């Protein structure tokens, strides 16, 4: 029984989501291998070999793997899939994009977004925006899984000494091509890796106010910036800041929600945070029902005051 983890990487280094996925793979009970599918990704493969608990890294290097195109990455995974009992992807945009292609081609069910491994064939996963937890058992020969990274601790990034084996890179499918990417430039920590997150809602009123009020607090705390769906839909914050059922699922040490009422869909994305602070002028706001510390106040006064008090 051997598990394969599909690494999330930027060709030069391994992204933290890979480390949580390795922990889930170890919990499946067998040896753990990591596939680094990339282009000129030797550095990422070297980093993967250092992860504690990993015994082998498979490095597939090809121009067809430069942009994470789902068709090509899935083909690369399928080329070695027969050797594995479990194939685990982090529940990132890339993982969610590729995993179902692999499962369908293997004619097996996929188990999405697991938060716990009960046994090698039984897993727990949230459904209905986290309002229920399903325990599911798979009878398929290969378990194709995406891993909710907040459900598992990160494996140590160093201390391992896996062998690195190369695999032939797949040919391009010829059916999809990469045109371009607009990366949100930010000095702030990524949402899914941030220890502290400061999140704003529709009450901010405009994109300018959002930055003017929320950014100084985030800077003071070296925090990631998040937003409710309402704030993103209104154009106050970029798409990839959205925390919630269909956005980012986060679990930082400290989550500060300002002007967020706390819709079910938002709570689904942040209720596993260690400490939650809510600042809202409506004392009936549902966000207070999950907050460790609630402050009933006007955020335009309280947030700047908090920033200057730190």
């Amino acid at each position: 029984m051997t598990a394969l983890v599909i690494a999330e990487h930027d060709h030069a280094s391994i992204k933290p989501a890979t480390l949580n996925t390795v922990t889930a793979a170890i919990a499946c009970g067998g040896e753990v291998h990591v596939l680094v599918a990339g282009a000129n990704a030797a550095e990422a493969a070297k980093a993967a070999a250092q992860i504690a608990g990993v015994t082998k890294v498979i490095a597939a290097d090809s121009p067809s793997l430069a942009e994470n195109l789902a068709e090509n990455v899935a083909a690369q995974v399928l080329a070695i899939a027969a050797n594995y009992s479990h194939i685990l992807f982090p529940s990132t945009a890339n993982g969610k994009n590729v995993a179902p292609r692999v499962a369908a081609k293997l004619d097996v069910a996929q188990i999405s977004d697991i938060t716990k491994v009960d046994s090698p064939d039984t897993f727990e996963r949230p459904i209905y925006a986290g309002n229920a937890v399903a325990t599911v058992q798979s009878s398929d020969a290969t378990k194709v899984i995406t891993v909710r990274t907040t459900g598992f601790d990160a494996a140590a990034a160093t201390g391992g000494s896996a062998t690195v084996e190369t695999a032939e890179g797949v040919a391009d499918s010829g059916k999809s091509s990469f045109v371009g990417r607009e990366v949100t430039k930010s000095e702030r920590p990524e949402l899914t890796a941030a220890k502290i997150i400061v999140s704003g809602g529709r009450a901010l009123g405009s994109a300018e106010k959002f930055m003017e009020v929320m950014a100084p607090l985030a800077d003071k705390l070296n925090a990631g910036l998040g937003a409710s769906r309402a704030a993103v839909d209104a154009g106050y914050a970029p798409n990839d800041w959205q925390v919630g059922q269909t956005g980012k699922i986060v679990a930082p040490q400290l989550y500060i929600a300002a002007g967020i009422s706390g819709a079910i869909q938002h709570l689904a994305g942040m209720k596993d945070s260690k400490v939650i602070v809510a600042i809202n002028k409506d004392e009936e706001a549902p966000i207070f029902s999950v907050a460790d510390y609630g402050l009933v106040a006007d955020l335009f006064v309280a947030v700047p005051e908090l920033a200057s008090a730190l």
Partner: protein
Amino acid sequence: MKILVPVKRVVDYNVKVRVKSDGTGVDIANVKMSMNPFDEIAVEEAVRLKEKGVVTEVIAVSCGDAKCQETLRTAMAIGADRGILVETTEELQPLAVAKLLKALVDKEQPQLIILGKQAIDDDANQTGQMLAALADLPQATFASKVDLAADKVTVSREVDGGMETLTLTLPAVITTDLRLNEPRYVTLPNIMKAKKKQLDTFKPEDLGVDVKPRLKTLKVSEPPKRGAGIKVPDVAALVDKLKNEAKVI
């Protein structure tokens, strides 16, 4: 050009579901059901492409029990031209739905299939990608912009850290994200018109698909409850709590 739009009937997004006390599932008796919100965005996008003149026919598909007809009528009220119901009372998992859709893709030969990126009941986020794999088609998931030409489609996607743009050859599969469009309100005349549109029904056997579930749900339980904490009177008290009690800053 034909577009196929699969739609799912789910518990309305405003309903907070309750776990049954015997742990067999969630209680959906007498609960409001609606079209999955992402699928509504998919129907809207397909209808807009038709209104722009690039597309000639929009076909809505739903898989499930007879009540899914309501969901198909809603899709037709938004502007889909006809509906197909694959009727079964069996529990349908994403792989089974993808196989049913693959059979319909073979039959109808659409150039584009637009699906919601995930259903808000099982939160699986699988069906579109599985369909693409089974039909050997390229995919663009989590779409926030779609530009359709005669032989290709260019799609902007919401990914971690920003946006990316892909071009796919047709036929292709697209799954929708929230910001792709804002679905229109359906008007009464359009609801009336939708009642007269063609709706065909198949059984999974007619399409030669085995829909037996692969995953067995052993139990469904309540998530660990997070209790409400305390209210603090002012910012100074909040800072004190965070520093000295929670010790997170």
